[in-house]
Each structure stands twice: as C-alpha cells, then as structure tokens.
C-alpha cells in the first residue's frame, strides 16, 4: 500500500495527474468487478487525454 501511495506523489512530482494510476483488488471469481475497474480506468484516462510532453526528446 505504501508503494501505491508513493506512486501518487511521484507522479505529481513529474507533473502527471495522480488519477493516471489506480490499483484495485479483484479475485478470479469477480468478472464484473474486473470489467468495472478496467472500464472505469479507460474512461478516466480518455478524459484526462494524452500527456503533453515538451517536444525535447534528446
């Protein structure tokens, strides 16, 4: 858990929305929960849109 909290902060350090990271626990007997988690995440990322990195790629 501590690591996932850390990821939230590190994402913000680098200027990314922390909503781009999520973690959920789904057992192999919970397909509905899995589908919900995946659709929720895809929807969320779609809403956030692409990451606009500065064009400097080295």
């Amino acid at each position, binding site marked *: 858990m*501590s*690591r996932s909290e850390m990821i939230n*902060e*590190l994402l913000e*350090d680098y200027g990314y929305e922390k909503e781009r990271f999520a973690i959920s626990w789904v057992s192999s007997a919970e397909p509905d929960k899995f589908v919900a988690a995946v659709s929720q995440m895809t929807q969320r990322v779609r809403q956030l849109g692409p990451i*606009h990195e500065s064009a*400097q790629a*080295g």
Partner: protein
Amino acid sequence: MGVTTALEWLSSCSGCEIAILNIGEDLIELLTEHLDIVHAPVIMDHKYYGQCGDEAEHLQIPEAVVGIVTGGVANEEHLEVLEEMRKKCRILIALGSCATQGGIPALMNGQNAAQSFAEIYQSSSTDKGAVLPDQGVPALLDRTYALDEKVKIDMMLPGCPPNPAHIAEMITALLEDREPQLPTKSVCDTCPTKREGKGSLSTVKRFTENVQFDPEKPISEMRCLLEQGFMCMGPVTAAGCAKRGAPSCIEVRVPCRGCFGSVLPKGNQMLDMMNALASNGIDFKSVVDRRSMLRFSGAHGNLRPLRRAPAKEEA
C-alpha cells in the same frame, strides 16, 4: 607524434581537469609519448575565431582523434562548442557527471529559471537589483542537458570528480585499441561495510546526527550506513569512487551523496532509491527532500520544475 586530442569544458568547474592532473606520474608518459593535445582552453590560449578574431565565421576547433568534453550543456555557446567538437573529433568522450547526467548545474532543472533569476539577482534585497544582461553573453537554453542529449557520445566516464585511475585506464585502452576495464556496478558492490539486515528500521534519518562507528576500527567493522538509517545513495549510484579500498564518502564515514550518477546511464536515482526504500518497508514520507536525490543527475528530464508551483508558460 602522439594521438591528437582536444579538450573542452562547458558548464563545468574544472574539477574534471584537476582529476586528469591527478593521474599523477602516469600522466607524464601519456602527455609526452602518447597524446598530442591540439586544443584545450583550460590550459592553452587557443582562439576560436583565429588569432585576431577575424579568420573564421564559425568557431573552429582543430581536428583530433580523441575529444574529451567536461560539463553539461547549459547555454548556446556550450551547444555550439559541443557540436563543433563532435564534428572534429573521431571519438568523443563525456568526462564527469555534468557531461554524463547534468551534474550540479542541472539542479537548476528543478526550478523555474525565470522565477529563480528574478529571485536570486533582482529581488532578494531592497536595492534596485541587477539587470539581466542580454548582450555579449550567450543565452541560456531552456534547461541544462547532458552531452548525449545533444550529440552522439562514444564513451562516458562519470564522477564528481571522476577517478583519475579510470581516466588513465580509458585513455590507455583507447591507445591500445581494447575495451577499457571500468566499473559497471553500484557503490554498494564496492563497499566493505558490514551488512546485517535492516532490522526494525522503518524510517530514514537526516544526516544531523553522527554515524555509529569505532574510529579505532577499519571501515569493514562499521555497520552499513543505510542499515543505520541514513540516506546513503550507494544502491543507486554508479561505482568508481573507491580509491583506497572503500567508496570515498564511506571511507570518511559519511553516506554516499550519489555523485557518480545512476548505475545505468539512463537511470533515475530518485525513483530507484524510492523504489528500494518502499520494497524494504521504509516509510517514504520520512525522506524529507526526495528531489535532492537527483542532485547529480538532473539532466535527461529527470529533474523538472514542480508543476504544482505557479505554472510555466507552455509553448
């Protein structure tokens, strides 16, 4: 005649050049029998535009087989010199942590440059403040770059300063046409301190209290500083600083500061260290200023201004 060699220094402090001098007696043979230095602003008064400044339109550096560049790329002049070095040298070597990963000057990459300039030069006192010059000085780039972000680099030797023995090995290997034998592991791999496991450690300490050790006993009798709870950057820092057995800082019982940069050339010392701490159940919130772990490796986009701060104008 020896192998023609050109030296250049960009955004650097000359510590790397002193490291070259510190090769010691072996340097005499290298200089007198093997190398022919054709350009080196740090020791020779060579003019970029001809002796009277009127012989060339573009700055000129003589052709050389080997080019050694220290310092990162922070302004337009650095970039122009670096590009000219790339054109004229067959083998281009990035020497020192500034050249390989940005080094200390790249600390600026973590700040908003315009804001910092105003704060440092113009508004810190009650008098009028300086006017930032825009004539006769090269303009700063948007951030400080490592050399390999701008041109192709053939060999890299990090360190702040680099280890003289490794500089000698690199040059000798080139002369003998073989692969140089340089360290590839982390500082921890070269560290003789005692490791007993982290025990009940769950936070890291700031270096405001002393390390536990017996001054009568050698380094190999001292407990690993990370295990003592200090932020030792050994696990995520490239080896090479050990000159008399132990890594240089550990030798004087001080935690590693990370001056050789990341173990892999494009690694990120801060992320690697945070990852290591989290894996060992250390509370990441006990690390006071995690961005300072990039104090020697802020180039390659590792260190950026915090976006939470007032937003920078994005083009």
